[in-house]
């Protein structure tokens, strides 16, 4: 091996060390950068031709645990789904109220029962009749609020779908662009690591919307598929997902009736089983809230409103009522119509006939809604009948189907228990999904920058640099020695 070859080898070593130092410094600078994958220098010996040698820098490798990353993305999707589901169930429980809250639906119904008891005990006392009126008003307002809250949740879900779709489309375009850039950069032999970081980060960001699967394609490109099988990106042009959000969702609006938008995929509407293509993330959860859970809760609230309405709208309770006439509870001051059950919880009101604030008379609660004058001020007959109607076990009619018989209290309690159970179930799933996501996140981060390791590498690089420099110095001295021969 000639001295010049030794110098060449030492120079290649110095070059590799310098590049390695740059990688270490970049790693250390990004210790806290989210989504940054640690890099390491990839080296190989240079070919030993004609006595030459040295080191060749193959490039810079990103340390990414692909399997863990894939699982992490699926965990993000599951988390995205359980986040929305839990938030919805929590919101439903809060709307109806929990067991120890003074304004829970159950407490308000209990209040009406006790107000009726007290009024029946002292029917001539306006104070107690006022209490019956207020308790009934609180129930009607609570049901109005529940209905409004359910529709707000459906609106929020609709907005969430629109945001998810918009984010998905823009991120897919960005990923497609990065695919092209990475391909170009790598073909020029340049380091595309930062572009890869950016692409990974973009995909991570949309993974909570729908579970994604990444498949490597030649030249550093990737293809993206949903777990359900939709091809989001395979080549240069991403798929286009379409959705039109509705400014305001009302109880009667459904996707089936065409009032609410579904997804389109490359311009084609996704129908029936095709919607399963986007299952598993926040997108599915939002659709479920808007089209299934929300309407189901609305149906329950409407059935509840109908149940309480029907208990008091009867001539058996109030003989002054004409057939079909509403009792103390009304559908916006009219009789309830079976065909308008959807959304009744949002419309239920107390009859103005008994509300002095609306020109009515409190004594009509005691004497009958159509009574012309109050004579028997201590007659509790009607109040006792109302109380009995309140306790009576009667079938709960929900959208035309009768279910088991319940009293007002057991219906309220069952409604609350169901919501509490749903909340607890989704909370438990949410906690589990969070834990799984955090575990995988920690696992990915364990492949991130470790400053101890970088400093250790730096010390090795320092030693290698000194050694190569010494070779260079020695070779230089050897050449000098030759040149000094006279």
């Amino acid at each position, binding site marked *: 091996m000639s001295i010049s070859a030794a110098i060449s080898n030492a120079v290649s070593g110095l070059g590799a060390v310098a590049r390695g130092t740059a990688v270490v410094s970049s790693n250390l600078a990004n210790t806290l950068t989210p989504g940054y994958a640690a890099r390491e220098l990839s080296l190989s010996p240079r070919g030993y031709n004609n006595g030459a040698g040295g080191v060749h820098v193959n490039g810079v490798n990103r340390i990414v645990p692909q399997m863990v990353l894939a699982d992490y993305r699926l965990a993000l999707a599951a988390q995205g789904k359980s986040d929305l589901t839990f938030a919805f169930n929590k919101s439903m429980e809060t709307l109806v109220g929990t067991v120890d809250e003074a304004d829970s639906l159950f407490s308000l119904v209990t209040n009406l029962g*006790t107000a009726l008891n007290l009024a*029946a005990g002292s029917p001539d006392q306006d104070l107690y009749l006022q209490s019956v009126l207020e308790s009934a008003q609180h129930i009607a307002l609570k049901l109005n609020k529940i209905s409004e809250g359910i529709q707000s949740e459906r609106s929020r879900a609709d907005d969430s779908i629109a945001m998810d779709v918009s984010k998905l489309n823009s991120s897919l375009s960005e990923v497609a662009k990065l695919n092209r850039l990475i391909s170009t950069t790598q073909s020029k032999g340049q380091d595309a690591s930062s572009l890869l970081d950016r692409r990974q980060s973009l995909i991570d960001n949309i993974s909570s919307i729908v579970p994604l699967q990444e498949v490597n394609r030649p030249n550093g490109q990737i293809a993206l598929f949903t777990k359900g099988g939709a091809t989001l990106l395979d080549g240069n042009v991403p798929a286009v997902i379409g959705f039109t959000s509705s400014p305001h969702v009302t109880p009667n609006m459904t996707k089936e009736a065409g009032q609410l938008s579904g997804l389109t995929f490359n311009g084609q509407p996704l129908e029936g089983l095709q919607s399963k293509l986007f299952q598993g993330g926040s997108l599915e959860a939002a659709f479920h809230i808007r089209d299934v859970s929300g309407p189901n809760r609305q149906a329950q609230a409407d059935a509840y409103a109908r149940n309480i309405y029907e208990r008091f709208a009867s001539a058996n309770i109030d003989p002054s009522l004409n057939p079909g006439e509403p009792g103390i509870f009304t559908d916006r001051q009219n009789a309830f119509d079976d065909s308008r059950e959807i959304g009744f919880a949002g419309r239920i009101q107390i009859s103005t006939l008994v509300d002095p604030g609306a020109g009515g008379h409190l004594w009509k609660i005691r004497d009958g809604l159509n009574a012309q004058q109050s004579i028997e001020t201590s007659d509790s007959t009607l109040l006792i009948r109302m109380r009995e109607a309140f306790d009576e076990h009667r079938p709960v009619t929900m959208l035309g189907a009768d279910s088991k018989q319940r009293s007002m209290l057991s219906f309220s309690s069952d409604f609350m228990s169901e919501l509490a159970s749903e909340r607890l179930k989704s909370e438990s799933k949410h906690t589990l999904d969070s834990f799984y996501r955090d575990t995988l996140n920690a696992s990915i981060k364990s492949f991130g920058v470790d*400053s101890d390791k970088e400093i250790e590498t730096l010390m090795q690089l320092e030693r290698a640099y000194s050694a190569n420099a010494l070779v260079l110095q020695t070779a230089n001295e050897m050449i000098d020695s030759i040149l000094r021969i006279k």
Partner: protein
Amino acid sequence: MNSYYIGDQTRALSMRIANTTIKQRIDALGKEMVSGKKNDLAKALDGKLYLVNSLDNRVKEISSYQSNLQNLSLTLSGMQASIQSIDKITGHLAPALLAAAGNGSSENISTLISEGASQLDSVINLLNSKINDRYIFSGTRADNPPLVSADEMISLITLDLPELASADEILFAVDSWFSEGTTTSNFFQNGYQGSLSNEVTVPIGGSNVTIKASAKDEGFQSVLKGLITLNIASDRSHSLPAHDIEKIASQVGSILSGSVTQVSETRSYLAILEYRVENQKNTLSAESDALTLALSNIATTDPYEAAASILESITAMQNIYMLTSRISKLSLSNYLS
């Protein structure tokens, strides 16, 4: 050689997750300590709320029934007190009038007639008693006094009576004013203002108490009839012959004697109601105590358990702080010089 590295961020992440979890636990336990109630009762009951709801509802229901029972108790004892006073009046007058009429002592008879006449206002006032701003002998028309005043009643009865009426005429006039059929008599049309048919019914939890007693009861009508007769006779005592006065004393004595039995029956009936009310009060009170205790056992937290859990969590938190502090100092760069 296999080497294993842990990225810097993973250490921070693990610490942060542990830190957040423990802080949430301390927060929940702190709330339990302060309120004395379980932080998430629905969770503690696994979503099965029917038991707590039914206990809570029953406690509130009992409270409303207790209030009704309290009012009922007052009403019944008010009625008993009034009737007792009426009983005292009639119990004294009836035998005295009968004895005086038997003896033919005109002076004594006159004194008793005057005394009886003066008691009419008292009896009407007793039957017009109010408790809690409610006329207790008016049935379901509790905002009206059941009886018009004594003067009004007498003037209505004596309207068609001749100036010098005999004992028979007075007795007939009073008797027919009260007895022309049950609800069509002058008494019901003009003297009685309470409810004609409806009775006060009060729910007391599981059953209702109905008070079937009012100023229209036959016993009270008899008392009123007797005292009104004495009143009219007293006004005309100077113009009536002695045997007419004796006759009136004898007749009124008999009417009042009859009323004593009828009024006693009402008193007994009310006493039974009072007994039922007291019994129900005791039953509900015992039930309320038992249910409140059961509710408290379910909903409240054990302060010792909560305090011990807080201490445990605080220790875990301190360990996390110590570890975070030490790990953050643990870096190779600190050992290089």
